[in-house]
């Protein structure tokens, strides 16, 4: 009989240790990255680092402004295309499409969410880059990056927005329709506003994914260190830069890469905090399953 109580008490300790280990990991990540980045930040100086326009590690120059701009531009470009497409498709799946279409499209979107980034990059390299090259420039460009990134974040926006739209209570719709509103007016004026927080959350999450994407962009965006002046120019966002140089960087160069990592980390924390706040404030009941 006493064995039961022994098991109960020791299992409590085991669970606690496991949980502690997990959280220790999470804390360690932040601490370690910061520690490795410190030498660079101290030596280069935060402002020179963030606003410097030249990234030439061999010359001792570590300015990441072009990278920051690259990330901002490619993310913005992708969002501009992906949001209307994504929300429109979400509306389609949630309300408009007949059952047969839905049965086809939903698993398709789900599949797209799971496709590895390298596959997106591969298709981008083989299909999109030549297309862009036909328009002008080397092909490996901001434009190619935007197109590939749009395709990558689209499924995220669609699936989460669709959940949100479906979660809006039927009674809202019925109330509007009973007053004589058309389907579209109901959607635009009642349903979408009600699903607003979920849709916003999906957009913020998509931004997070875009900012952090490294591998697919490495393959299509050109990775040249100048500030892109047109969409046909190559660009070099933050995340792909880290991926490219980590394996051979040493000393201050390596520390600078960690500093870029810190910048990304901070960016993501800000973006995700906004997402969490938006989701909580909207009080939407969506469960990401």
């Amino acid at each position, binding site marked *: 009989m006493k064995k039961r*109580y022994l098991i109960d008490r020791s299992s409590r300790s085991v669970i606690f240790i496991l949980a502690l280990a997990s959280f220790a990991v999470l804390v360690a990540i932040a601490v370690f990255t910061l520690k490795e980045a410190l030498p660079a930040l101290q030596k280069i100086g935060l402002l020179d680092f963030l606003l410097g326009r030249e990234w030439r590690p061999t010359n001792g120059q570590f300015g990441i402004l072009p990278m920051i701009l690259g990330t901002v531009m490619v993310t913005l470009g992708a969002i501009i295309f992906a949001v209307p497409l994504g929300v429109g498709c979400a509306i389609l799946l949630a309300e408009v499409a007949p059952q047969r279409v839905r049965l086809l499209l939903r698993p*398709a979107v789900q599949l797209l969410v799971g496709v590895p980034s390298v596959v997106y990059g*591969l298709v981008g*390299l083989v299909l999109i880059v030549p297309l862009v090259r036909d328009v002008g420039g080397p092909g490996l460009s901001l434009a190619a990056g935007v197109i590939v990134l749009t395709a990558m974040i689209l499924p995220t926006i669609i699936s989460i927005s669709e959940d949100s739209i479906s979660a809006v209570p039927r009674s809202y719709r019925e109330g509007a329709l009973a007053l004589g509103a058309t389907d579209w007016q109901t959607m635009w004026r009642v349903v979408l506003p009600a699903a607003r927080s979920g849709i916003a959350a999906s957009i913020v999450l998509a931004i997070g994914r875009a900012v952090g994407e490294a591998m697919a962009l490495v393959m299509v965006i050109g990775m040249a260190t100048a500030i892109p002046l047109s969409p046909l120019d190559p660009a070099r966002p933050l995340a792909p830069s*880290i991926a490219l140089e980590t394996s051979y960087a040493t000393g201050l160069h390596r520390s600078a890469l960690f500093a870029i990592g810190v910048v990304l*980390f901070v960016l993501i924390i800000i973006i995700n905090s906004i997402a969490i706040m938006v989701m909580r404030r909207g009080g939407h009941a969506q469960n990401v399953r």
Partner: protein
Amino acid sequence: MPRMSAKSTQKLALACIWGTGVVTFLILLVILGYVLVQGVSDISWSFLTTAPRGGLSGEGGISTVIVCTLYLLGLTMAIVVPLGVGAAIYLSEYAPDSRLTHLIRYGTEVLAGVPSIVFGLFGFALFVTALHLRFSILSGALTLACLLLPTLIRASEEALRAVPRSHREAALALGATKWQTVWRVLLPAALPGIATGVILCIGRGVGETACLFVTMGGTSALPTSLFSGGRTLSMHLLHLVLDTNAFEKALATGVVLIITIVAINAITNWLSQRFRARMAGGA
């Protein structure tokens, strides 16, 4: 411009919406279609069973890569499942409703969104360098485990919370201890949900490149121990694209990857169905 009537606005809106659906479907078609159509011709038994021979033309197959991928995923899951499920049990059943708990949960949520390249950096600094594990499957697995941990914790905790409170009460009223309640009632009831989370993590691990790229080394030899370097399917695809001109092989590798993802999605869906059915009664 005269104001459009509500009906015409609706027609226009509907057309646009269908347009977005068409575009999305096209994207899917292009990605999957291109890879599958072009790549399938290069898939053969020998492709799957010979080792890559390296070199500019990317000779060989993907046998060692497949082995390495399985090895890595197995090791990663062995690390992340006990830690993740344990932490989820703690958060769901044992943790007091304190500020510390809220902080931990917040931290988990935020970390779920950190890009994998940052995890790669971290893994490089800690496992590869500081702990002297070098470029190895062990470093890769530890790094990947860190990446997947927040996701698994979140999925498992949700599954546990979905078990109705009345089950806990009924078990306690029958004289069960807390651990007996967790082990005999909650975990079995939450198992499909947890399993879904695990499979989802496996799927994500299969597609991961960035964090493994900088911790696993990328050799194409058959791994002999935890400390050998290695290359996963996604890494191999990257290598083929960036370092060789063997695009057909890259596409073939892509096909294998996509098929794996399809299979994983199907299993996840089936498990979700079972989860819902079991909670509602029957089975």
